């Protein structure tokens, strides 16, 4: 039962969903949608849908895990049981435990945690629907939620994967490209430092491909970064527009 592998790049150089190699999937970001959380954000990247809530800085429980010189960050990356084709057990998998750690480490470098000693900041990332690139989209949304919570940040963190499919480097892989492709390299990028706070890779890349992938990843992250800034401002600009529209109506 030999299955014919579908081509991931067609004769026109386009990908399974019609994108060019350096083209991101359609991305929607929304900030401040959960009333109880101190900060929250939602992202749709292609068919991946992720919601993030931030609580804190708040009192540490239990007290002894607090640090005398800065806030501790707690991070949970979790996939909903219905987020995948096959139901995923809600118990945290080894993958989720690893990702929770490296996502925390991807966000910590931008947080001024020294402002809030003996407190904690919680970041809850829930993948509602998974179609590839969820750790990156989770980081992108989490930094929006942190900013929305009013937590002082050095910068926003933007994240995007670069991969190799049918021998070609492409950005922002969907699930099929991730599973069938030859390499996947998630990158979280902090523009203010020109630095990576998350970098992983599996599959195989030559040195030349790796250097090129880093550059492509940086470019993709910068596009996402612009969208993040827009999403954060949009919320306040909308209120401003509606207030100003109201005033004009009254004057008329």
């Amino acid at each position, binding site marked *: 039962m030999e299955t014919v592998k579908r081509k991931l790049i067609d004769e026109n150089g386009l990908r399974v969903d019609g994108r060019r190699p350096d083209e991101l999937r359609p991305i929607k970001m929304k900030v401040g949608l959960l009333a109880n959380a101190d900060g929250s954000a939602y992202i749709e990247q292609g068919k991946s849908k992720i919601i993030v809530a931030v609580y804190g800085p708040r009192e540490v429980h239990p007290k002894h895990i607090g640090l005398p010189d800065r806030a501790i960050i707690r991070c949970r990356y979790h996939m909903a049981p219905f987020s995948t084709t096959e139901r995923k057990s809600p118990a945290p998998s080894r993958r989720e435990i690893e990702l929770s750690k490296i996502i925390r480490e991807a966000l910590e*470098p931008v947080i001024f945690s020294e402002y809030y000693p003996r407190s904690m900041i919680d970041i809850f990332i829930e993948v509602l629907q998974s179609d590839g690139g969820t750790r990156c989209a989770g980081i992108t949304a989490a930094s929006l939620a942190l900013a929305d919570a009013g937590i002082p940040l050095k910068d926003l963190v933007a994240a995007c994967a670069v991969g190799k499919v049918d021998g070609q480097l492409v950005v922002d892989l969907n699930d099929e490209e991730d599973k069938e492709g030859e390499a996947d390299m998630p990158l979280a990028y902090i523009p203010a*430092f020109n630095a*990576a706070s*998350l970098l992983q890779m599996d599959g195989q890349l030559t*040195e030349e491909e790796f250097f090129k992938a880093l550059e492509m990843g940086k470019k993709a992250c910068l596009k996402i970064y612009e969208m993040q800034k827009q999403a954060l401002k949009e919320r306040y600009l909308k209120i401003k527009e509606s207030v100003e529209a109201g005033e004009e109506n009254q004057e008329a």
Partner: protein
Amino acid sequence: MSITPQTEPLAKIKSKQIRELLKTGKRIDGRELDAYRPITIETGVIGKAEGSATVSLGNTKVLVGIKVETGSPYSDTPNTGVLTVNAELLPLAHAIFEPGPPDENSIELARVVDRGIRESKAVDLEKLIIVPGKLAYVVFVDIYILNHDGNLVDASALAAIAALMNTKIPKIVVGEDGEPKKTEEFKPLPIQDCPIPVTIAKIGGSLLVDPVLEEENMASAKITITITKNGNICAIQKSGPGTFTLDEIVEAEKTARRKAEEIREKILSSAGG
């Protein structure tokens, strides 16, 4: 949930000494920035295991045992055998390790080692299928940390690949009745690559390979880059709460590539033998 860890407090005088030395391109144990500690590899140390190896990297000591059983292949990969990697940060290895289920550090360690082996296709899993969809060899790689003095990833991955190369599995023949039968004969595991991880820590603006524990505790971040025998990169993991600039990543990759070559020769001569 992942929580910012409480780091071991390091005497300021010591961290200052480390920083000052790094400025002159030296390290506390006298090594160059790109020098590994002495590596010793011993294979076949556990007779009851199908394969085993201990690796010492300075004072870091890791034992890997390989057990091979038969079982069903995964439903989504009916034509390949099964490989799983597990790591135990044993309480006997350091005062900071507590007994209990694997925490995020041991899970990350196991998954980084797993990625290097899997993505390099070091073990030809397709040759480990006995009856497609029904029966396959299941290879358990268990990493035992015996003494922790930094750079557990490299020591563990080297021990794992050395142990896999040393592993003999029972030959199984499928009889005419379709029933698989174990024979008395043994064959080596089908090994087709020798992935080598190189871990590089960042302290201040310096990049140094194979950090000892004191250096690890001071490092803002680490990156492990695993290189196949063809010179491809097959796994990367940045770890720790800091960042690497893109230039530093490029520099780290070049160092990793160079060091991987040196270490591979060592592994092949002591384990591949």
